[in-house]
C-alpha cells in the first residue's frame, strides 16, 4: 500500500489551496481528482469573479484555476493523480482509488475531503427527455468543448449559476427565452440579473416547470405560476417551444465518502443539505479526516479557496509541523473569509455554521 502524509480528495479550489499550505509546511501531499484536469468547476467559469484581491477578484474563473494549479503542480512535495476516482474511504485513513481500470490503495496520516458539491434536480413530468441539462453539463459542453446545448433554451433557477450560465449562453449565440424562478424574488446577485435583463431576457419569478413535452427529444415545456404558498395556480399554464432546458436549482454538498467512515453529518438547509460536523480545525468526527469547501456547505468558490488555505494550515498544525507563517496566514484567511460572509448573502452561511457548531461533537 502506498503512503502519503496527506491525501486531498478533490482538486478544486479548496483542495488546491489546502495542498499549497500543507506543502509549504513541508508535508508530502497527494491530490486525487477524478477529472482529466485540476481546477474543479473553475475551469468552466468564463466570467470575472467577485470578492477582493485575496480571492483574485475581477479575474476570470478559468484563469483563477490556472493560478491555483500553478501553485501546486511543480511543488516538490505534491503528487497529483488525475482521472482518478476515490471509491472507498476507511477509518484507518485508507483510500481506494480507481484510475485507468486499476484499483490502488493509499494510506495517509491525514485526509482532507474536498469533494465539492453535486447539482440538485427538479421533479416534473418527462424530466428525462434529451435536451434537459444541468447547468454544470451546459458549462462543460459549451465552455470546455465548444458544443452548444441547443438553439432555444429556458433556464430554470435564478441563483448566480443560473444567471451566469444564461449570460454565457447568450455570448455563445443561444436564444435564452427566459429564466424561470419558483421563489417570488431573484436568487442571485442583482448585477447579474440586470446584465441578463438588458440583453432582453425576461425573468419569471413565482413560476415553475410543470412538464416537458417531446417525442424523442425536448420540444416544449409547460410553465405555471405559483401562489404565495408555492402551489400551482391552475389556469396560468402556458406552453413554450424550445430545444433545451437548463436546470440550475442549487447544489448539495458531496458528503458521501465521509458517510463511508461514519463521520457524523447534520441536515442544515442553509448549507445545502447534509454536511459533516467539523470542529474549528475542519476535522470531522473521524480523527485525522478533515473536510473543506462546498463539501461542508455551499458557497462561492472565493470562500472555498479561503477555507482550503485555512484547512491546509490547520492540518499542518495538527501534524506538529506548522507552516512557517502559520499564525499570520490563519489570521489573514480567517479575516478574508469573515469578510466574504459579512453581507446579506453570507448571513445564510453564518446561520448554517452556527447550527452546525451547536451540539458540536468533536473528533474522538
Amino acid at each position, binding site marked *: 500500500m502506498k503512503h502519503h502524509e496527506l491525501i486531498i480528495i478533490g482538486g478544486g479550489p479548496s483542495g488546491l489551496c489546502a495542498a499549497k499550505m500543507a506543502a509549504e509546511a513541508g508535508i508530502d501531499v497527494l491530490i486525487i481528482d477524478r477529472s482529466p484536469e485540476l481546477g474543479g468547476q473553475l475551469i468552466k467559469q468564463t466570467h470575472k469573479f467577485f*470578492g477582493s484581491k485575496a480571492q483574485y*477578484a475581477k479575474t476570470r474563473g478559468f484563469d483563477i484555476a490556472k493560478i491555483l494549479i500553478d501553485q501546486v503542480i511543480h511543488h516538490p512535495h505534491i503528487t497529483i493523480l488525475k482521472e482518478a476516482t476515490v471509491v472507498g474511504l476507511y477509518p484507518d485513513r485508507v483510500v481506494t482509488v480507481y484510475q485507468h481500470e486499476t484499483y490502488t490503495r493509499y494510506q495517509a496520516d491525514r485526509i482532507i475531503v474536498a469533494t465539492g458539491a453535486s447539482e440538485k434536480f427538479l421533479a416534473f413530468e418527462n424530466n428525462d427527455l434529451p435536451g434537459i441539462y444541468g447547468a454544470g453539463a451546459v458549462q462543460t459542453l459549451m465552455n470546455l468543448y465548444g458544443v452548444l446545448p441547443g438553439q432555444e433554451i429556458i433556464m430554470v433557477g435564478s441563483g448566480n449559476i443560473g444567471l451566469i450560465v444564461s449570460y454565457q449562453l447568450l455570448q455563445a449565440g443561444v436564444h435564452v427565452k427566459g429564466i424561470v424562478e419558483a421563489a417570488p424574488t431573484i436568487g442571485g446577485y442583482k448585477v447579474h440579473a440586470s446584465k441578463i435583463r438588458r440583453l432582453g431576457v425576461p425573468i419569471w419569478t413565482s413560476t415553475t416547470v410543470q412538464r416537458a413535452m417531446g417525442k424523442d427529444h425536448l420540444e416544449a415545456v409547460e410553465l405555471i405560476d405559483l401562489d404565495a404558498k408555492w402551489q400551482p395556480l391552475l389556469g396560468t399554464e402556458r406552453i413554450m417551444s424550445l430545444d433545451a432546458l437548463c436546470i440550475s436549482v442549487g447544489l448539495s454538498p458531496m458528503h458521501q465518502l465521509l458517510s463511508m467512515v461514519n463521520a457524523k453529518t447534520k441536515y442544515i438547509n442553509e448549507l445545502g443539505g447534509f454536511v459533516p460536523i467539523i470542529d474549528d480545525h475542519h476535522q470531522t468526527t473521524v480523527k485525522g479526516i478533515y473536510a473543506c469547501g462546498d463539501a461542508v456547505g455551499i458557497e462561492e468558490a472565493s470562500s472555498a479557496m479561503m477555507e482550503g488555505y485555512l484547512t491546509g494550515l490547520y492540518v499542518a498544525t495538527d501534524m506538529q509541523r506548522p507552516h512557517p507563517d502559520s499564525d499570520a496566514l490563519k489570521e489573514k484567511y480567517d479575516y478574508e473569509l469573515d469578510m466574504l460572509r459579512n453581507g446579506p448573502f453570507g448571513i445564510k452561511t453564518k446561520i448554517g455554521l452556527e447550527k452546525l457548531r451547536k451540539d458540536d461533537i468533536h473528533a474522538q
Partner: protein
Amino acid sequence: MLNKTGIPTKDQVLSRFPDRKVLIKPKAILECYEDIPCNPCSTSCPFDAIEIGENINKQPQLHADLCTGCAVCVPSCPGLAIVIAQIKGDRAVFKIPYEFLPMPEKGQIWDGINRSGEIICDALIEQVAISSKTDHTAVVTVSVPVDYLYDFVTVRVRL
C-alpha cells in the same frame, strides 16, 4: 422591482448620477444596488474616487470630484455594472463594457438599449478599446441623444 425583474427603478438609477453640471466632465455611474462581497471597482481606481471601505459588502460610493472618467473601473467590475457618462452638448457620451461578438466598430450605428432590454434610440459607436488590461471586456465609447442620458445602458447590433 429590481428583486423581481432585474430592472432598477428610475429613482435607483437617478441616485447614481451626479448633477448634470458635473457631467460636463466624464464620471463613473456605479449601478451596484445591493450589498455583495466585492471591491475591484474601488481597488482598481487610480484616483481613489470609489470608496467601499473595509467591509467589502458595502455598496461603492463615488467621489465625483476625484473621478476623471478614465474608465479603468468599467472592465474591472465583475458585474458589468459601471458605465462612464458625460454630457457633450446635445449628446450623452458613454463608455460601456461589452463582451459579445460581433464587436462594434467605430462609426457604426447600433441600437441603443435601455435597462429593460428595449431598443430606444440610435447609438453612434465612437471608439472600441480592448487590451490585455481589460481582459476580453471591450470598453466601447458610444454617444446617444442627451434625452436618453438616464435610460440608455448598452448597445445591440442592428438586425
